[in-house]
């Protein structure tokens, strides 16, 4: 999949959490079920309390240094909504534990597989998030917002603004039984940043996330000191990301990168058994997983005893396999098919808010109109860009073509992180007449000819909503050539900055840190999908960003970021669309309550199979 710059960006609170429903088939008498539920809630509340205390302690320890301040800011915000989120989760936690079948296995059907099972490799792009990331667990666990919490493979401590000390916890092992040591953490970071001795040319997918790391050295066999080349509030978080891999040094040096890509040994809550690249990936529960089911954060020991991912490319065949009882979970099913299945009562529909705010990035860097050589690029005229935003009826698309649960995205920040409260009042909205007027005013009464590029088949119903958008743009006078591209061509063009036409792009739906925002916003950033802001506002954006980086007063910083987000939105350098919600259909015995606010996929450790 396309990985947006801020992999950690799971912090948007604006999203409604959606449960899987379907508790009706509970055989238990209701009273018992309720009692269980209450117990469950109490337990969770206690866990939450403990976790908060831990967080507070941590904060107290870190108060002195600047970085901790930044993190505190984040955590403050999160604590407020953490309780809310937890409450929401508990509402859905209507499944009685007694009914869970701990020996059950499940089969999930997917439309795509990764090419290799090495989560660290850029060659695994495409299908990775949907398939084997459950084999991996990061160095630190995560809270529902995607921030690192204690209790993982190691604990961490900031020493000044310069370095991060990682101290290993006892009794953590890889799937092959070997202990996870500080040396393995060092090896993992080295491998992912191209410093590992065995292969410095390793094609890492995580360099962006680890760009803050400088030199690292083993203090003793249990302790690693990581220097921060660029001080970052995300330092700990980036070692806690969902799907972040931990590599066993000895094993990889023995089997090599190609061997590892075929047989991953990792630390996740599921253990890899075998795979066939075109057929299946088989896994079993890692019973030695260090965090049990009572642990407050993610991931935990899974409920399922085993899991098989099966590759079924055709959507129709995937649904058929589910209906025939061959698989228990059909991933990425268009709402048109999923909703009736859910309504039939025989299936649970999982709505999974993916971390992607879709938008169409408008080409503003080129001076000349590719369609009319010699003429200025019409997209550099803000009125044309606003007209494009006014032309697209996003709500009609989400209501009718998608699930109706998608939120409109102000993309740079749709959550609590520097989101201007009053921005929704300034939303462009749908106004084709005004769009036509603006185009005429800009001197394009005869229309603006443009290509519109998208990566075909990547998102549910993408062909449908892109055709709808193209038609809506045509309605107001754009002359649109819709162009579906395949993944290699698209990625290559994006890298080379050869995408000179508007294109569909997923931005991580809301940043959680200034660091991740800077990658996309800073005018000095080389990021290929960088946010473009023209003219005077460009300098203002850079000023706001720089100011925010050194502003330690939380309220003031929020204000700076809000101003930045507002400028970006009103600049209309994108056509703002919606935050994607994926739809999966499962057999009624399977239950899933999303733990993360924006889960990267169906969290398998949290998937429960009911006794039947």
């Amino acid at each position: 999949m396309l990985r947006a710059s801020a992999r950690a960006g799971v912090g948007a609170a604006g999203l409604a959490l959606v449960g899987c429903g379907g508790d009706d088939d509970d055989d238990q008498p209701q009273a018992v079920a309720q009692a269980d539920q209450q117990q469950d809630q109490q337990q969770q509340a206690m866990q939450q309390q403990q976790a908060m205390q831990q967080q507070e302690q941590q904060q107290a320890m870190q108060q002195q240094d600047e970085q901790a301040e930044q993190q505190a800011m984040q955590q403050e915000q999160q604590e407020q909504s953490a309780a809310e989120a937890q409450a929401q989760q508990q509402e859905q936690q209507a499944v009685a534990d007694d009914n869970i079948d701990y020996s059950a296995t499940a089969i999930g059907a997917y439309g795509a597989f990764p090419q290799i099972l090495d989560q660290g490799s850029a060659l695994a792009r495409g299908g990775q998030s949907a398939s084997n990331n459950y084999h991996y667990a990061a160095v630190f666990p995560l809270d529902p917002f995607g921030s690192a919490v204690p209790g993982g493979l190691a604990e961490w401590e900031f020493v000044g603004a310069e370095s991060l000390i990682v101290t290993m916890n006892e009794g953590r092992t890889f799937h092959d039984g070997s202990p996870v040591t500080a040396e393995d953490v060092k090896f993992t970071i080295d491998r992912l940043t191209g410093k590992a001795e065995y292969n410095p040319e390793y094609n890492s997918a995580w360099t962006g996330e680890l760009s803050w790391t400088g030199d690292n050295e083993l203090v003793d066999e249990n302790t690693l000191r990581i220097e921060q080349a660029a001080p970052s509030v995300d330092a700990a978080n980036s070692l806690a990301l969902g799907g972040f891999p931990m590599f066993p040094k000895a094993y990889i040096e023995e089997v090599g990168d190609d061997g590892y890509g075929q047989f991953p040994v990792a630390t996740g809550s599921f253990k890899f058994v075998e795979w066939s690249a075109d057929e299946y990936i088989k896994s079993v529960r890692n019973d030695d997983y260090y965090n049990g089911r009572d642990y407050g954060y993610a991931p935990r020991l899974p409920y399922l005893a085993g899991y098989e991912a099966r590759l079924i490319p055709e959507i129709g065949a995937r649904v058929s396999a589910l209906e025939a009882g061959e698989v228990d979970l059909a991933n990425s099913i268009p709402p048109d098919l999923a909703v009736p299945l859910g309504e039939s009562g025989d299936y649970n529909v999982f709505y999974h808010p993916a971390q992607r705010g879709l938008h169409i990035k408008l080409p503003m860097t080129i001076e000349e109109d590719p369609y009319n050589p010699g003429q200025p690029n019409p997209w550099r005229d803000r009125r044309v860009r606003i007209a494009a935003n006014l032309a697209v009826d996003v709500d009609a698309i989400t209501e009718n073509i998608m699930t109706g649960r998608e939120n409109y995205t102000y993309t740079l920040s749709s959550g609590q992180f520097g989101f201007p409260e009053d921005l929704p009042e300034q939303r462009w909205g749908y106004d084709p007449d005004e769009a036509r007027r603006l185009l005429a005013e800009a001197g394009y009464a005869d229309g603006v000819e443009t290509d519109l590029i998208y990566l075909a088949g990547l998102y549910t119903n993408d062909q449908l909503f892109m055709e709808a958008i193209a038609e809506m743009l045509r309605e107001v006078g754009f002359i649109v050539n819709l162009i579906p591209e395949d993944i290699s061509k698209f990625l290559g063009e994006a890298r080379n900055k050869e995408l000179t036409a508007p294109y569909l792009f997923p931005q991580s739906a809301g940043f959680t840190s200034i660091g991740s925002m800077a990658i996309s916003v800073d005018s000095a950033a080389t990021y290929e999908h960088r946010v473009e802001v023209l003219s005077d506002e460009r300098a203002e954006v850079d000023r706001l960003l720089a100011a925010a980086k050194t502003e330690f007063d939380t309220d003031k910083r929020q204000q700076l970021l809000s101003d930045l987000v507002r400028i970006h939105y009103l600049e209309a350098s994108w056509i703002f669309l919606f935050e994607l919600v994926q739809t999966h259909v499962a057999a009624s015995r399977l239950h899933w309550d999303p733990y993360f606010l924006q889960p990267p996929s169906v969290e398998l450790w949290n998937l429960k199979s009911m006794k039947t």
Partner: protein
Amino acid sequence: MASHLIPRVLQSIAVVFVVVSLVFVGSRLIGDPIEAYSARNATQEAIDAARDRLGLLDPMIVQYGNFLWGVLRLDFGDSIFSEQPAWDEVSSRLWATVQLSLAAFVLILAVGVPIGVLAALRRGSVPDLIARLIALVGQAMPNFWLGLLLIFIFAVQLGWLPTSGRGGFENLIMPAITLAGFGAAAAMRLTRSGMLEVLSNDYIRTARAKGLADRTVILRHAMRNALLGLITVLGIMLAQLLAGSIIVEVVFAWPGVGRLIFRSITLRDFPVIQVGVLVIAVWFVAINILVDISYNFLDPRIRVGGET
């Protein structure tokens, strides 16, 4: 016969050579995956270094030479993604596709041909009309559509067969029917018309009129002649089933070579594309040679290569 066979084989090698060369050029024109699948902040130097390791910075003619030299040594390079030998990637899936193609071919022979014969013998009867209608429909139906309909009816509604994947015999039934659909219909029509033609020949009419010869003898004779004309067509069918299985493999999640090549084109994994197409081309010419030989064997009057 060997003297006819040698030039035939040499010609076939030339055909394979041309096909493979075309694919070499084609897969270079679609670009390489290095740019798209490099680390986010990889420098241009790093990207060029990766290209250099794969020999992509050499002039095209040098790359082509290296490629041919590799083919001669049966070394086709590694898949860019899995880093496994491209030959292994293809060969591990080859049996699945061959199995599917052969099953479809058996269906064509076992269903298309006999029904064609029967339809010809009972020309104009209701069974004949039904058979012809089914054959016409079969030839007029896109096979992905047929496949999805079969899944819906036999796997979901009736629950008789598994929907997809490869496993036991029951997994093979629907993909084989889907793949055979078009060919079986064509074979049926060709057999029927071939039989009718033979049956209308004078010697058969005479034999029948005399009432002397045993009916089965006539039939055997007629069929032999009718089928002889079919061999070329059936041979081409068998050859094309392998390459044509790609759609069926996608619909039924069949882990075969067609899907591998399809995916490799999307990914620009050209070593795999090249081996995959090479295998298909070799399969094709090999079957053509076999057809020639069997033709020669069945009908000594026709000499191999006599046509050209």
